[in-house]
């Protein structure tokens, strides 16, 4: 295969070898689905986001009193059996409910009719950072209290992190590339990027891709609290997630799913589909530094961002908006800002950066899914969702234009979306107007 290099040698963490761009098919977004604390579909979700609505409240699903962190962005008023076959709902974990229903929304939004498709060329790549946490926890309790013979035969199918992809395939009878993918909080971004590659290299024409997570459970809270990773702003839940702010003290857990329908450009054009934008670039990298702490020099993230932009055929100065990882942890927001400044130079002060986790909470493996939905809606609507709760930027470390408090109208041609996971894994996606 003919390849061409468009990269350049860099000594500052961008990698010693140039990026290779392979001549490949263009991939576009044609459908969106989202379930979050801010709404049970993509339109509701987006409307709440641009209104600057906080999705974080005191946790309702269990009594959070014994936990250091008592806040979360829960999906409320949700009954999976209203959206899927009740028997299937009972047999599956909450994380699969979210991903499955969001996938159905995305397919409906795309206008795809599977009867008219070559089902061997439609695939699914929905990841989850943790998988079926509810199932895991509830069945462990059954084992402890009632013994091994009472443990549900649906435990393993429910808790494995690839089941959501399997369920979506069964629903549509689509037999193309299909698996789950895990990189902690970068999962959803990796899933969309790998799905883009799957189409680019010709293994599928359509991919249903994104992330799903449902980890607002006592065990998950106990474990993340033990790491001192979660916000303890318990007296003001709506103000607990405050990326880039001086008073930030940890992430706030969210839950839900964000799913895209991706297609090759030719496939989308051939069926006259409404095209939102292009997924133009993707890159994955690793800090190779520490199990949970990001590299203080931001090298791994810088590598992912720069390669994703080059893969998209763009220069850093072409990026209008960054949907930041912005977890509201002391380390992330500081080091992510540093990496952005290193890569973008003077343009770092020109572009808009916001962390929508200030409203959605951190959906772990679904973050990349919903933030991809946000990136697409940003290009479509010319509106940038804000970073709420940013009362006092943590200067001098956090000194970019984070679009504080209120949404902003701006023509956006290219968006960079970052997500980083425990393990040091980074993923960056570039969405581009067509």
């Amino acid at each position, binding site marked *: 295969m003919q390849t061409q290099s468009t990269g350049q040698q860099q000594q500052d963490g961008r990698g010693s070898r140039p990026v290779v761009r392979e001549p490949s098919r263009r991939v576009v977004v044609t459908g969106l689905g989202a379930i979050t604390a801010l709404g049970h579909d993509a339109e509701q979700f987006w409307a709440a986001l641009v209104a600057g609505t906080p999705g974080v409240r005191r946790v309702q699903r269990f009594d959070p009193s014994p936990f250091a962190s008592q806040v979360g962005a829960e999906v409320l008023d949700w009954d999976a059996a209203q959206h899927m*076959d*009740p*028997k299937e709902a*009972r*047999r599956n974990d909450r994380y699969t409910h979210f991903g499955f229903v969001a996938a159905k929304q995305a397919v409906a939004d795309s206008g795809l009719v599977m009867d008219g498709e070559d089902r061997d060329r439609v695939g699914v790549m929905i990841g989850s950072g943790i998988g079926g946490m509810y199932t895991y926890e509830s069945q462990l309790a059954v084992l402890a209290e009632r013994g091994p*013979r*009472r443990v*549900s*035969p*649906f435990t393993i*199918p429910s808790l494995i992190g690839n089941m959501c992809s399997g369920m979506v395939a069964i629903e549509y009878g689509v037999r193309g590339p299909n698996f789950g993918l895990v990189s902690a909080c970068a999962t959803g971004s990796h899933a969309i990027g790998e799905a883009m590659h799957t189409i680019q290299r010709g293994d599928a024409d359509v991919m249903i891709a994104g992330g799903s997570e449902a980890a607002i459970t006592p065990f998950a809270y106990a474990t993340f609290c033990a790491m001192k990773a979660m916000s303890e702003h318990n007296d003001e839940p709506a103000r607990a997630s405050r990326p880039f702010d001086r008073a930030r003290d940890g992430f706030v857990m969210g839950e839900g799913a964000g799913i895209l329908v991706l297609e090759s450009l030719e496939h989308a054009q051939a069926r006259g589909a409404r095209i939102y934008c292009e997924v133009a670039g993707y890159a994955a990298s690793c800090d190779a530094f520490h199990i949970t702490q990001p590299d203080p020099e931001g090298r791994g993230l810088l590598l992912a961002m720069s390669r994703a932009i080059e893969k998209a055929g763009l220069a850093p100065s072409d990026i209008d908006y960054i949907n930041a990882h912005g977890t509201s942890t002391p380390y992330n927001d500081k080091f992510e800002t540093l990496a952005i400044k290193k890569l973008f130079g003077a343009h770092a002060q020109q572009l808009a950066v916001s962390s929508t986790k200030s409203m959605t909470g951190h959906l772990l493996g679904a973050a990349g899914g919903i933030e991809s939905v946000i990136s697409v809606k940003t290009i479509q609507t010319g509106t940038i969702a804000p970073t709420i709760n940013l009362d006092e930027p943590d200067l001098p470390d956090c000194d970019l234009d984070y679009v504080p408090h209120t949404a902003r109208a701006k023509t956006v041609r290219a968006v960079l979306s970052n997500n980083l996971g425990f393990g040091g894994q980074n993923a960056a996606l570039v969405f581009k107007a067509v």
Partner: protein
Amino acid sequence: MADHKTIEQRVKEIIVKQLNVNEEQVTPSASFLDDLGADSLDTVELIMAFEEEFREEIKGEIPEADAEKLQTVGQVSDYIKAKAGA
């Protein structure tokens, strides 16, 4: 008020709940796998549910060898009645 229900009624209620089927479908001759849409995992869960519901009658657990023979609604009711009467 579970005490006033017949074994057949209690069996039927469990099946309706576990398999998400209509009560009318749950006839004595109905097969879990062939008529009620169950798969092998459903049947394992059904046996567990019967064991829970009929703890008094069965006086223990349903042995694997017995469970394999319980393929229709009527077979389950008969099995429980036989155990209860024993």
